[in-house]
Each structure stands twice: as structure tokens, then as C-alpha cells.
């Protein structure tokens, strides 16, 4: 066996913060041979990105490698000097960042930016560099590469920007490529094409790759080996089949359970459930009953003439959960805001409980008696909480205005009751958003939405910004809330597995139009439209049962 390309031995990284030094990496050992693809999986704060940044020596000033050794091609690069790293970075190892748009310079054309990378390591004329840049854009299979050379980043889609980033990363034929969440924020179909491209390029050029991701399915699908990190330590490292089929570490087990697959149910996501009385069964909507919400021929035309929502009609029964699926730009968020009466539709009618609410302009809807009936949970829980309101104030706000609770003691009691229902410990009520974790913020957002006792809850990607284990708990919570209160949900999500678990019926949106609609089960197993089929196929998945069977077959064969 040849010497590994990269070895990390007992790496320790410490960040100096206001509250003293914090050890972010507590002794990580990993190794990677040439041409191998290693996945590092973990949730936020697990130290997966810090590990990669240490290899590239890109830690910010507060971070310091305090122990261990990093060897690259037999050379010790722990705390290497600038001069030593310069020829390595970009040429021998390169990195793809999470947000491609932010990583590209907005005022230079992508052709020039790729040429910059080339010319930093080789002496090339402008013309030669341009020719090479074109070749690279062809290699990343961007449509119409010649024209794209002179495009600015804002003229490209997110997926195309990531292709440009990949082109820059492979420009100097590195032997190691580090991809830090390369597809986070991209649509699932774009994610698939970008990841397929990465896998193909690295395989063809014999590059080793470290894929850092929070998505177990993605890592399992594209990597030969997966390391799971938790709190600065690698807790388990194995081939995907073992990791999924027979995870040994309790954290891995929890993570595997929490990652939604095509077979999981809301119950199966959470291994150690919160102590709660058994939830009542879902209330089945009575057939033939008056719909709670009916949207007819809804159209939204934006000022620039773009038809964000194009002739959409659907209805929702009391207590029903309806999923709204689509990629970015499909109009699902616009539609959810129209239903919530935060923005006005250009055409169409909206009736709630038999009364026309579409006629009330959204700017006056705060005065409507239906305001308390329709509430919303937002995608970005950090952004949806007023930074200057404590959790208590945030939950108390709708109670005061919509619930009409004025008495201080009664308000306190009701806020505490809401907090209890969403599983937010009482001592967190006095905290401000920046003092809460992502999951806690999500709970505050949900508590605020249910505080006024609505009848319809619009959930706009409520778990998209959360770690999978937190997502599992929040989904579980939302499901239980619905059973307890008989709330109707309009569940907007790009994650089809989540919608399948949460909703009885699903609508698939594409470019503002409904392309498919039907009960969730059949829609996911046998989609009738091409678009839905494509969406479902693009979900990164790793079938634990199939993997286990394969492994068993392998064991008996040996």
C-alpha cells in the first residue's frame, strides 16, 4: 500500500474567544489516499469545517492549531509558513466553498477570475489563460461556455456559479480537492448534477476529495469512506454500508435515524423521544366538509412582469396537512405569503372558512378577524425573530394583539403554556435570539405562531435551516401539535421526504404552476409527471437495507 496523500494525526485546534479558549477540535485523526473520496459528516459545531480549514491553513486569526500533525505528500504542513503554502494552495490542494456566489468576486467576469487562478501559479499570457479558462468551463459542462467567460457572477444561477467555482478549484490540477458543503443552498436537482460532476471529474483526474456535508445521504452516495464528527471528535469512521447498516456509536445511530429516507416516518426519526403523553391519532378530515381554505386561480405578477404564481387553485380541509413542494423560483414561498395575507395576489380569490379574505388588502389584514386564524412559521428562525425581543416578548406579542391578553399574570401563564407545548424550557424565555440555538429559535417561532390559536398554520420550510437531528425533533413536535389541536397545515418544503412524512396530500409546483397534485403516498411512489419523477430521483439517498444485504452477500462470498 502506498503512503497516504494526506494524514491528520491527533489534530487539536483551539479558538480564543471572549470567554476564554475553546477547543474546537479535540484530537482528530484521518487519512486519505490518492484518488480517494472521504466524507466528513457532522452537524453544525461538530468541527468538520474547522478540520478542513486547518488543512488549508485558512483558520481565522482566533483559531490556532495547538497539537497534532498534518502531513501532505509526506511533507509536514502543520503551521506551515506562507511561503511554503503558496505553491500548495490552489495548485496541489484547492477548496470549494459553501456559498459560491459569495466566494466569487462580483465585479469581475468569471473568465478573468478563472484566469487569475491559472496565472497565479503559471506564467501565461492573457490569451492563453483565456483559452485554458474556456477549456475548464467546458470541463465543468456549463452550457454555452464561450458566452459564460464574459459573464459576471450575478448573471449566473447558483448551480452555474458552483460550476465556475469547481472550474477554478480544478484549474491547476490539484491532487486534493476539499468541498465544504458544496451544494448547500442549491436545489435538489442542481445538487445532483453538481455532485455527479464533482464525482466524475475527481475520478477521471485521479483527485482525492474530502466532502464536508451535513447530509449523511449525500456523503454515503458519493464517498468511499465516511467519518462522522461530533463535538470536535471523529466518533465513527466506516464505509457507507457499515455506517448505515450497523452504526456502532450512539451518535451515529441517532444521526442515521434522523436522516429522512424514503421509508422513514415521523416516529422513526427520533430515537430517544421527549417524554410526552402518547399523541392522539391524526384527525382525518371529514369527507364532503366545507374546505377551510380555498384558493382559486391565484396569479401573482411582480413589478418586473415575472409571473411568480400562475393560475394556482387548491383547497385545504380543516385539520388537513397539505404539502407544497418545488425548487427555488417555483413560487412556493410567494404562494405561502399570499395565503398568509402578507402580500397581495394579482388575480384570483382566497376564501377562508367560507368568507372571502383575498379581497382584504394585505396591508389592512392585521385588523381582520381572520388574522389570528392564519399564522406562519418562517424558514430562517434567526431572521424571523426580532433581535431586540426576548423569547417571552416574541411569544407574548401575538397573544397581546390577537389573543387580547392584557393582564400581566395571565400573559405570563399563557406564554409559559405555549413554551411548554413546543418543549422550550421556561428559563430560556428571558433570552434573546442570539443567545438561543437554532432548534430553540425554531421552537420560539412555532410557539409564536400557535400562541393566538390559529386554525391554519403555514409552515414555510420550517426545518430547512436546521441540523437533521434538530429537524427530526421539530418535525415530531409539529406532528404532535397537529394531532393535539387539529390545526391545518400548509407545509412548504423543498425536501420531498419531509413532505411525504408530514402531509396527507401534496402539490408539486414548477415555475408557478401546479404540475402534479395528489395523496402523498402514491405521488411519491409513482409520480405521473416528469418533473416530479426527476425531483424524487434527485434526492440523495442511501438505502440502509439494500446496503446491509449487499454487505451480507459480500461476507458470505468471502
Amino acid at each position, binding site marked *: 500500500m502506498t503512503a497516504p496523500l494526506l494524514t491528520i494525526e491527533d489534530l487539536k485546534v483551539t479558538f480564543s474567544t471572549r*470567554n476564554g479558549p475553546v477547543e474546537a477540535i479535540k484530537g482528530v485523526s484521518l487519512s486519505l489516499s490518492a484518488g480517494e473520496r472521504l466524507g466528513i459528516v457532522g452537524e453544525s459545531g461538530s468541527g468538520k469545517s474547522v478540520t478542513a480549514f486547518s488543512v488549508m491553513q485558512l483558520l481565522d486569526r482566533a483559531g490556532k492549531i495547538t497539537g497534532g500533525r498534518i502531513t501532505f505528500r509526506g511533507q509536514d504542513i502543520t503551521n506551515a509558513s506562507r511561503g511554503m503554502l503558496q505553491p500548495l494552495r490552489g495548485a496541489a490542494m484547492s477548496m470549494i466553498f459553501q456559498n459560491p456566489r459569495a466566494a466569487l468576486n462580483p465585479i469581475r467576469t468569471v473568465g478573468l477570475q478563472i484566469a487569475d487562478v491559472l496565472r497565479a501559479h503559471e506564467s501565461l499570457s492573457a490569451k492563453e489563460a483565456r483559452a485554458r479558462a474556456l477549456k475548464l468551463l467546458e470541463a465543468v459542462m456549463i452550457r454555452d461556455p464561450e458566452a459564460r467567460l464574459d459573464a459576471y457572477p450575478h448573471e449566473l444561477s447558483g448551480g452555474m456559479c458552483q460550476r465556475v467555482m469547481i472550474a477554478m478549484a480544478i484549474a491547476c490540477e490539484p491532487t486534493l480537492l476539499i468541498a465544504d458543503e458544496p451544494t448547500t443552498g442549491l436545489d435538489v436537482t442542481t445538487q445532483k448534477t453538481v455532485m455527479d460532476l464533482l464525482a466524475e471529474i475527481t475520478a477521471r483526474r485521479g483527485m482525492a476529495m474530502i466532502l464536508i456535508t451535513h447530509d449523511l445521504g449525500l456523503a454515503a452516495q458519493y464517498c468511499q469512506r465516511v467519518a462522522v464528527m461530533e463535538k470536535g471528535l471523529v466518533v465513527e469512521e466506516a464505509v457507507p454500508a457499515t455506517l448505515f447498516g450497523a452504526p456502532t456509536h450512539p451518535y451515529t445511530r441517532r444521526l442515521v435515524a434522523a436522516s429522512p429516507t424514503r421509508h422513514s416516518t415521523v416516529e422513526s426519526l427520533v430515537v430517544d423521544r421527549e417524554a410526552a403523553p402518547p399523541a392522539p391519532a391524526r384527525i382525518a378530515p371529514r369527507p364532503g366538509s366545507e374546505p377551510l381554505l380555498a384558493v382559486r386561480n391565484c396569479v401573482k405578477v411582480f413589478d418586473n412582469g415575472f409571473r411568480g404564481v400562475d393560475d394556482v387553485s387548491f383547497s385545504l380541509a380543516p385539520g388537513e396537512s397539505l404539502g407544497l413542494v418545488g425548487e427555488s423560483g417555483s413560487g412556493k414561498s410567494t404562494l405561502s405569503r399570499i395565503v398568509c395575507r*402578507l402580500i397581495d395576489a394579482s388575480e384570483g380569490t382566497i376564501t377562508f372558512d367560507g368568507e372571502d379574505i383575498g379581497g382584504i388588502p394585505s*396591508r389592512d389584514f*392585521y385588523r381582520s378577524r381572520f*388574522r389570528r386564524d392564519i399564522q406562519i412559521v418562517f424558514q*430562517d428562525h434567526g431572521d424571523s425573530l426580532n433581535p*431586540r425581543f426576548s423569547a417571552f416578548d416574541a411569544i407574548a406579542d401575538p397573544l397581546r*394583539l390577537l389573543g387580547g391578553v392584557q393582564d400581566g399574570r395571565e400573559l405570563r401563564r399563557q406564554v409559559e403554556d405555549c413554551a411548554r407545548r413546543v418543549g422550550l424550557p421556561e428559563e430560556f424565555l428571558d433570552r434573546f435570539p*442570539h443567545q438561543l440555538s437554532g432548534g430553540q429559535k425554531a421552537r420560539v417561532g412555532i410557539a*409564536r405562531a400557535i400562541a393566538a390559536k390559529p386554525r391554519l398554520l403555514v409552515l414555510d420550510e420550517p426545518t430547512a435551516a436546521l441540523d437533521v437531528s434538530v429537524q427530526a425533533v421539530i418535525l415530531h413536535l409539529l406532528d404532535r401539535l397537529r394531532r393535539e389541536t387539529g390545526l391545518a397545515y400548509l407545509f412548504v418544503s423543498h425536501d420531498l421526504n419531509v413532505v411525504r412524512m408530514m402531509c396527507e396530500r401534496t402539490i408539486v409546483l414548477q415555475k408557478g404552476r401546479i404540475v402534479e397534485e395528489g395523496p402523498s403516498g402514491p405521488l411519491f411512489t409513482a409520480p405521473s409527471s416528469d418533473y416530479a419523477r426527476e425531483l424524487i430521483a434527485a434526492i440523495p439517498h442511501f438505502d440502509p437495507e439494500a446496503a446491509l444485504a449487499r454487505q451480507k452477500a459480500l461476507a458470505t462470498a468471502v
Partner: protein
Amino acid sequence: MIAVLRHTGWVLRGNPVTMVASFGALVLITLAIVGPWIVPYDPTASNVPNALMPPSAAHWFGTDQLGRDVFSRVIAATRLDLAIAASAVSLSFALGAMIGAFCGYTGGRLDRWVGRFVDVLMAFPLFVLAMAMVAALGNRVENIIYATAIINLPFYIRFARAEVNVRRNSGWVEAARASGNSHVRVVMLFLLPNVLPAMAVQISLNLGWAILNAAGLSFLGLGVKPPTPEWGIMVAEGARFITTGKWWLVVFPGAALMTAVLCFNLLGDGLRDILDPRMRT
């Protein structure tokens, strides 16, 4: 409260310039409050035989052409100068932040009209505008305050408008509307408190500028009338004697003016760090 104090302490320790500036501002404010009671001489009592004495143990900053103690006058002037600046800045802040916030939140026609009005106002040389206003309204302290407030107004309107504009589509504003908040409540309870930390910098910078403005107007003989002790008047009166080497008449009130302006200017950045809750951990 303890958390706020601890946070303030942390900001000050990490930022010695802010520390010095806050100390200076604290001294100035204290002098403004207790100044007239602690001065060694009556700042308006003339003592002609003792006129134009250089600094000495009895008169630290010397005496002026009427034999008044310059030290006592410099200290006593703190109250008037700071009061003018503070009231002018509070006035333009209160008005400007509100107008700007509503414009930024609603957009549309109101926003455009106010925007043009602000542009017109800013096209004037502001100090000349203030002079014209004081001259037209009458030579009184209130009018200096109004004039200073009006020429500062455009900055607050623009600033608040821009800060609110970037936040009006944020999730928590939508959430506030979904919770049944009226538009006035959204602006007053949600948006304004959030733009306040950034505006604190502006307030602090403006305070220094307003002091300079008030002193400048008085220097030109507009506003405060002698024999009231005021830094601008003192510099104006002392300027006649500088050619004969009587430097202390100008240097001490001038230095006081400069110190005050500098303190408030340096305070700005630190103030933002102290006021922003997200900087507290």
C-alpha cells in the same frame, strides 16, 4: 443591568480610545451640571484693574479684557454649549429618525417627496442656512437650537430611511405583521429599536458637530450674546487681542471646544458596540 455594565466594561477594555473618550465626555457632562457652582470666580463679574493678566496661580487661564477669570468662564460655558448641542441633536434625531423610518418602511410617494425635500435642504451650504435662520428668527438661544436641528435633520432622515429600508423585508417584520401589529407599531416597536445602535454613532458625531455649529454662530455674533460665557463668543472676543500676544483669551476656550468635539466624535464607535445586544454574549 449587571450584564449591560459587564458588557460595557468589556467594550471599554478592548477599546482604549473609547475609554478615554467616555471619560472625557463624563467630565464634560459633570462640568456642565456642577460647573457654575464650583468655579472660583463669578464668570460674569468684571474687575477692570485686573484686566488681561496672563495665567497665574490665582487665575489659571488668566483674565480677559474686563478682568473676568477665563478659567471660570470656560467651565461655566460648558453647560450652555452642551445644552444647545444636546437639545438640537435630540430634536433632529427624534424627528429625523421617525420621518426616515416611516419613509423607509412605506416607500412610495411619501418616500419620494421627502427624499427630494432632503436633497434640496442638503444643496444649501448648511452653516449659511443656519445663519440665515437665526438672523431671520431672532437672536435667541432657542433659535440656535432650531437652526442646528434643522440642518442636521437630513442626515437622520437619510440614515434612518436606509437602515429601515434594508430591514423592512426581513423575517421578523413579516412575523410582526402576522402577529397583528399595525404598521405604526412595526415601525416604532420593531424597526426603530433595531436601527438605534447604528444611529448612536451618528448622534455622537453630530453632537460634536452641533457644539461647533453653536460656537460658530456665536462667534459670528448670532445667537448667544455677551457677556454670557460661551466658547464661541470667548474666541471671538479674544481674537482681537491675539495680535498683542494675549494668547490665553483664545487658546483656552478653543481647546475646550476642540476637546468636547473630539470626545463625542471618538465616542461614536464604542457607543454602537455597547448598545447592540448582539455584541453581548
